[in-house]
């Protein structure tokens, strides 16, 4: 989408003026970058010994790759469980029995409105008092990711089922299918296909949220980067930039995947 309709195509004078303005803007941005550069430089963050560790194989092997594995482990476990949770609760909210529909709606709305961090704290710090054992940070993070994102996915899937033409379920009933079969064989597969881009976008949210694990001491990427690498080489800013870059690359590829799936 272009927004060229917001302004006239510039004439010769306009072109010259726009060029001058563009140069001015570029200069201002460069000046801003230079100020940031100077501030970093004053703290020695550009020194080669702060950046070269990021290229070393042993740094990747001790910090970055295990951190990435931790992040992806929590995110993938989370997305599988959240998918199951979403499937169950979307079906429950679509039930024709009030006594199933209402509690399912309450559960979904509750977990959508509670901050993820509170869920993680509840599981992590409260588990000993509630079930007598201290659960691992991984379990607490996955617990939170599942309940929160599961509720969101439940809403996405439900919207998908509701958006299907009525004829789909009517035709399925007409062929003699039972309620469960209609849902399982006809409605859910179509809803899943229609909602795939939204579900992939939710996976991006989930992946970013898995970084909350650092607060309860789960060894994920942000923790390994800032508490691992930066503690050893005192290079907070280079490490943060590298970690951000890794997240951005993964998330942008997921974004692209969502677009592709949407186009199909």
């Amino acid at each position, binding site marked *: *989408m272009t*927004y060229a*309709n*917001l*302004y*006239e195509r*510039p004439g010769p004078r306009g072109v010259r003026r*726009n060029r001058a*303005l*563009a140069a001015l*803007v*570029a200069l201002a*941005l460069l000046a801003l970058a230079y100020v940031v550069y100077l*501030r*970093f430089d*004053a*703290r020695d*963050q550009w020194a080669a010994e702060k950046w070269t560790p990021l290229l070393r194989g042993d740094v990747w092997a001790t910090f970055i790759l295990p951190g990435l594995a931790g992040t992806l482990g929590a995110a993938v476990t989370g997305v599988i469980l959240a998918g199951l949770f979403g499937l169950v609760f979307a079906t429950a909210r679509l039930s024709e029995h009030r006594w199933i529909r209402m509690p399912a709606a309450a559960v979904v709305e*509750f977990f959508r*409105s*509670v*901050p*993820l*961090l*509170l869920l993680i*704290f*509840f599981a992590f*710090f*409260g588990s*000993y*008092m*509630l079930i007598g054992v201290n659960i691992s940070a991984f379990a607490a993070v996955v617990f939170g990711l599942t309940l929160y994102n599961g509720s969101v996915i439940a809403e996405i899937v439900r919207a998908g089922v509701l958006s299907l033409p009525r004829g789909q379920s009517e035709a399925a009933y007409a062929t003699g299918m039972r309620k469960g079969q209609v849902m399982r064989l006809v409605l859910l597969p179509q809803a899943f296909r229609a909602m795939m881009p939204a579900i992939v976008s939710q996976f*991006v949210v989930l*992946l*970013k*949220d*898995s*970084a*909350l694990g*650092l*607060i309860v001491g789960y060894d994920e990427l*942000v923790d390994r980067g*800032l508490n691992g690498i*930066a503690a050893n080489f005192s290079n*907070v*800013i280079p490490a*943060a930039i590298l*970690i*951000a870059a890794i*997240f*951005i690359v993964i*998330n*942008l590829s997921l*974004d692209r995947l969502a677009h592709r799936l949407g186009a199909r």
Partner: protein
Amino acid sequence: MDALLIERETILAAFWMTIRLTAVSALGSLVLGTLLTAMRVAPLASLRAAASCYVSVARNTPLTLVLLFTGLGVGANLGVELSDDLATNNFWLACIGLTAYTSAFVCEALRSGLNTVPVGQAEAARSLGLGFVKTLGLITLPQAFRAVVAPLGSILIALTKNTTIALVVGVSEASVRMREMIETYGDQVIEIFLGFAAGFLLLCLPMGLLFGWLSRRMAVAR
């Protein structure tokens, strides 16, 4: 229930901090998000590139990392001091981080709002002789705002919940208080959790209702 009653003052203080973080960051994100939107549709390619680069970086970085970067990187490492008082300094750093993150989402919402404004609106404005700034500021952007009231409401609710992450910059808001209370009153974990969850429900549900009502009321009839 005792714990929640005994500690009601400190809990309210913690939620007051949550509300202040939300209010300041929401205002900041609205301003910065609008500015970014204007940059993304500007006639100058350099402005467009800068804004879209910023948005894709901010949107795809975990908020935890953004806040740690403002806290550890900008605050501690670069020595940017916004106030002599440590707590106030942390508060402003948290607001900067939350604003930097949320404004990218505001920008995305507003840009999709611009897509709903019919082409004829801008064409009519141009035919009256309005330039880019006036076309955008007086004609298309106001209509875009009215189209995206509901998404902006969702962003505000997400921001309210996201303020819990400000604890990584050392701001003591609701989530910090909840953790401390679970450790002090270990026998009342469920009550404490439900109490804090109810606090967030009380903040977020009215916002959802208000923005739902506003979006119906402000919708542009076409």
